[in-house]
């Protein structure tokens, strides 16, 4: 029986999305459309603003990853004003950024995407949340989760002004130096976070790796795509969140190219579809051929899985160990299983924690030399960071007074948008047969989506919003046949 | 709803351009008591005829000017706003007009970015002796705003569902007492 299934929206993600499933007369899924129904227009109203306000303005694209936008914006200002921050400022930025990666990855694993695994994809809805996680792992450990997050967020508040919508980034440095007392707290926080990372990895091993049903799900074809991957790496081709060159590897794991952020326009294009407000990124070097994977399609992925796929290792010991375990479990890089992203995220969490500890221990971190005052006329700047959800480009042009004339923002989830569309399409095709579907099944379709931790708030710079999950099943003439409310 | 409220909503809106009625701009003026308001009195005493579109609100000093007043006037239906104060150095309160100028200059910068033309919001120094200047400026701003057309403003009001308490007081409509 043919018809349409509309999942509107998907819960427990930051932002707004709907899935429109067309089912043909044979009861098979014809095509799935992932629609992002909103837009805010940051690029437009950025025009006329002071460039130095951009790190604070763009952070409002997303309140979940405000630090990523703040930092990308700040780095763009360095470029725009042709100024290099003093070493201490760079270190402070990276240290605070690592703190952010820790807490954001923890948030996703325990509050948003993780419950799918920790509690189980078919658990009752009232348990598929942080409270369910606490129920599963125990209140003490639940408090541990909350406690670590509190500690790390506290460090961010102190160093960046506010964890949600930071204020400390300025062209040529940061506004506030790190006191010895705060440095000590960073050192302690890093130690806690590393322990927490180890614990989380063990939890993943216990709950997912040792559960054959989960592993079958992870490895199933429904959640596997052979695409390109992009991410920032350091000079040793190891993962770096704050800075470096962009590296792209193909479906077979070989390097396609590397490039500096300011060359992004040569390699990254955005494809517009009339049925979604999101734009779909692709590699210009390959070209847009539609929603398909494989070496001939310019579709690529970013975010933890992609970052591990483009890197040749992690810069810190515990993370390196986890990385090796991750690689060997899946038989080497690249790993094309979308759901492995959850594991990759934990590997990164440990890496960020260790790196934060290294930076906090650097004697220069408390230096008062935190600003280089710009002297040149601003013109154009491009900045990049690895947001938790993937590569984030900011690109501003200004007039001579430093007022924005053009702002281009390519955000993490946008890079992933085409692959997410593929994932949802593939999952639905594998899981949905006919229009007689149940809620657990739909949740599994959603899982394809949630693994990316997509942030459509970011991706469309939209006003994200959540709507109920209502599945409408229509006949080919568009008449409503049935409506499923997931209760 | 009181009688007054009904009459209020039934009242014709002069700002609405209709086929029958050409656009008549409404201008709100904030005049300082000591110079410009006095000059407006002088214009009256001298029987200088000028455009009836300007409604004067008296402030003691142009330094009392709050930019909120200008915006409130525009929001409430004015197509233009005129601010009048003593000439520089002549302020009855020494430096009130300096402050009016400071606020006005920054406000004007901002109003440009909000799509309000410079001609709609003006600051004029008019001394108590310059009745003719009141006449000239009022005529001028009226014509300039008329040429610009109505201010196209669409401001949603705050939603409130509460009943307004209090019945209207009894009223007498008196004839001239003899």
């Amino acid at each position, binding site marked *: 029986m043919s018809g349409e299934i509309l999942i509107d929206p998907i819960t427990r993600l930051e932002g707004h999305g709907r899935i429109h499933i067309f089912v043909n007369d044979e009861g098979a899924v014809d095509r799935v459309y992932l629609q992002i129904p909103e837009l805010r227009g940051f690029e437009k109203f950025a025009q006329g603003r002071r460039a130095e306000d951009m790190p604070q303005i763009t952070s409002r694209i997303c309140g979940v990853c405000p630090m990523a936008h703040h930092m990308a914006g700040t780095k763009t200002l360095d470029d725009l004003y042709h100024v290099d921050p003093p070493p201490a400022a760079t270190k402070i930025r990276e240290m605070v950024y690592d703190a952010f990666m820790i807490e954001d990855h923890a948030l996703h694993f325990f509050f948003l995407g993780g419950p799918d695994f920790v509690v189980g994809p078919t658990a009752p809805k009232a348990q598929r949340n942080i409270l369910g996680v606490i129920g599963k792992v125990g209140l003490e450990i639940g408090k541990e989760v909350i406690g670590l997050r509190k500690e790390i967020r506290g460090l961010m508040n102190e160093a960046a002004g506010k964890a949600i919508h930071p204020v400390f980034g300025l062209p040529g440095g940061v506004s506030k130096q790190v006191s010895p007392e705060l440095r000590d707290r960073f050192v302690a926080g890093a130690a806690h976070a590393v322990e927490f990372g180890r614990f989380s990895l063990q939890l993943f091993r216990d709950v997912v790796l040792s559960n054959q049903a989960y592993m079958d799900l992870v490895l199933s074809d429904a959640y596997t795509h052979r695409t390109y991957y992009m991410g920032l790496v350091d000079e040793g081709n190891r993962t770096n969140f704050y800075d470096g060159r962009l590296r792209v590897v193909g479906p077979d794991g070989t390097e396609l190219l590397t490039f500096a952020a300011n060359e992004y326009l040569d390699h990254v294009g955005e494809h517009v579809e009339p049925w979604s407000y999101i734009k779909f990124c692709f590699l210009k070097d390959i070209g847009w051929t539609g929603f398909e994977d494989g070496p001939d399609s310019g579709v690529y992925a970013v975010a933890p899985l992609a970052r591990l796929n483009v890197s040749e290792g992690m810069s810190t010991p515990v993370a390196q160990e986890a990385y090796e375990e991750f690689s060997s479990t899946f038989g080497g890089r690249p790993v094309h299983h979308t759901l492995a992203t959850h594991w990759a995220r934990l590997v990164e969490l440990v890496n960020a924690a260790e790196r934060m500890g290294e930076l906090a221990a650097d004697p220069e971190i408390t230096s008062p030399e935190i600003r280089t005052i710009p002297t040149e006329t601003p013109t154009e700047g491009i900045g990049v960071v690895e947001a938790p959800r993937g590569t984030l480009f900011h690109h501003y042009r200004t007039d001579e007074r430093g007022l924005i004339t053009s702002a281009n923002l390519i955000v993490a989830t946008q890079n992933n948008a085409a692959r997410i569309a593929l994932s949802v399409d593939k999952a639905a095709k594998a899981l949905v047969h006919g229009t007689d579907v149940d809620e657990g099944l739909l949740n599994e379709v959603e899982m394809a989506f949630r693994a990316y931790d997509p942030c459509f708030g970011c991706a469309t710079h939209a006003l994200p919003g959540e709507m109920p999950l209502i599945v409408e099943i229509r006949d080919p003439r568009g008449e409503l046949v049935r409506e499923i409310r997931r209760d | 709803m*009181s009688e007054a409220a009904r009459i209020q909503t039934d009242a014709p809106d002069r700002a609405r351009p209709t086929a029958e009625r050409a656009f008549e701009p409404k201008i709100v003026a904030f005049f300082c008591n000591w110079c410009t308001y006095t000059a407006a*009195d002088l214009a009256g005493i001298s029987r200088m005829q000028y455009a009836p579109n300007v*409604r*004067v609100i008296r402030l003691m000093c142009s330094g*009392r000017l709050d930019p909120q007043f200008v915006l409130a006037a525009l929001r409430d*239906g004015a197509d233009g706003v005129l601010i009048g104060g003593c000439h520089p150095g002549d302020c009855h*309160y020494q430096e*009130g007009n300096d402050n009016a100028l400071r606020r006005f200059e920054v406000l004007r910068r901002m109003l440009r970015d909000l799509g309000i033309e410079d001609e709609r919001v003006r600051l004029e120094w008019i001394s108590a002796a310059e009745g003719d200047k009141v006449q000239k400026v009022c005529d001028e701003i009226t014509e300039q705003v008329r040429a610009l057309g109505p201010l196209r403003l669409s401001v949603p009001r705050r939603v409130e569902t509460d009943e307004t308490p209090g019945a209207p007081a009894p009223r007498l409509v008196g004839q001239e007492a003899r």
Partner: protein
Amino acid sequence: MREPERDRASRPPSPNGGPRIGVYVCHCGLNIAGKVDVQAVVDFAATLPNVAVARDYRFMCSDPGQDLIEQDLRDGLINRVVVASCSPLMHEATFRRATAEGGTSPFHFQMASIREHVSWVTADADEATEKAKALVAGAVRRVALHEYLEPRQASVNADVMVVGGGIAGIHAALTMADAGKHVFLVERESTIGGHMAKFDKTFPTLDCAACILTPKMSQVRSHPNITLWTYSDVVSVEGYTGDFTVRVRHRPRYVIEELCTGCFECIEKCIHKQGKFDDEFNEGLGKRKPIYIPFPQATPSVVVVDPETCIWFKTGKCPQTCVEACERDAFDFEQQETFDEVKVGAIVLATGFKTFDAARAPEYGYGTYPNVYTSLEVERLLNAAGPTGGEPILRDGTRPRSVGIIHCVGSRDERYNAYCSRVCCMYSLKLAHLVKERTGAEVYEFYIDMRAAGKGYEEFYDEILKEGTHLIRGRVAEVTDEAISPEEEGRLVIRAEDTLMGVVRRIPVDMVVLAVGLEPQSDAQEVRRLFNISCGGEGFFTERHPKLAPVSTFTDGVFLAGACQGPKDIPDTVAQAGAAAAEALAMVDRGYVMLEANTAFIDEAACSGCKTCVGLCPFGAIAFDEERKKAAVNEVVCKGCGICVGACPSGAAQQHLFTDAQIFAEIEGVLEYV
């Protein structure tokens, strides 16, 4: 739009229920009714919110008109009043009084000017009627929010203070003291007398300055109503109109004033046999000892010890012959600064002027050539009590055979002061006369314009002309000692364009006198701040109104006398000092001052202590309480401009009768109904 969360100030007090407004539309004969359809305005007013009564009347300002208001108020029909008639500047007071007579606050009233602003200025009758409706609606909307306010007054302290003991201060102090007020006269120097005490003769009558000044000085000294504080200055002024608290510092003179009899034996017996130090009173032309009296008639007649030059103070080793000479044991080398704090109701500032520093105009060679003098130095040379006993002799002891007087030094010159100092022309003529009289020298005057506007001044000018003084019209280019002819050898040459003859002239002279202009005292800005008054661009104190309030300032209770307000000669100074004294007396004698109703006030709970308002107040009416971190308006000092209210970023500052809510209501009123 977002509306304010709450607005305490706008909440009308309702001792007798909500607002019930009476609207009274005046015909003003045909002045209004001839143009405006009064009946239509009344009918319209009746429909407005909270309007309980709407009436019209032929002349609202007449007694029957006012009775209408009073009766409706007394009958309890209304508790607020709007009169639509003439300008509030005309009859606001009238109707406020009527409103008060009716038994409510006079400020429960608002006026709509439909005559000056409508009927007299609008050609079309329909348009006039519409505009009148709009203004009435504005007044109705506003008056509903008027607060209940009582008129307030403050009492005035009967004592007064005069700051500055020159001729202006002396005259003002005597005038007020004679009227029975107690006067505190504060003088910075060790004696009163000011500049006038330095002069030999005064123009145009050429009477002796000392002869007319000295009696007044001793009158001050002996007047039972005057407390004279010399060698003293004002260090702080607090309070407000009618109730100032002034703190005065007395500097040590090391001689107990009450014990010194003015015998000057101590000066005689000083270990320095001769004067050794530059004598300030004589412009440095003479020498004084470390213990001295500026001039013989100094008042009080008390010696001063200068610790900078006294050997005892410098080395601690001196036989103290002065102490020995004093029969009254008046010396006290341990003397310290002392302070007095007094309360006064009014203050007259008579702080005078300083002369232009001639060294700033190097082209005239002052400080370079010893025989270039300032006019004030020559005044001293000509003074019988001066360093040369009245003989204008040069520094080498010779008499000048020719003297050049250069006008407008530091005046009427964009480089220094653009203004005319008003006195230089006349005193230069006076100096020409005196020099000629005493030396027989040829005198050349170089002037730009001869300004002789004053009683007897033009006649004085004619006299001097007749005496044979050479008057050369033209600005002097330079004074030089470079001779180009034998006649110029060893003399000073004044090079000037003679604009009447159209030639450049070189006049060799033995003495050059620079007629320096008058400038504000160098500490005028500090004094201004101390007394919270203002200075004009040139630095003199600003009067409240140049014509109608020439001796008042924007701080009520502070008055100006003499050259601190601008250059002026002695007759004008004395006249102005008398005027200032009279104004101060008028205020003090009445015993109270009415306070503005429309003062600002600060809602303490809403004040964040941001201090935005404090520095904006032109009158210093806002004080910041450092303890409680709140600003507060002194409503007695506040003049009701509302600058602070417009600026207050959190709406904590408001102005009575001009609250934000009232003005917003008026804006809506004038726009919403018509």
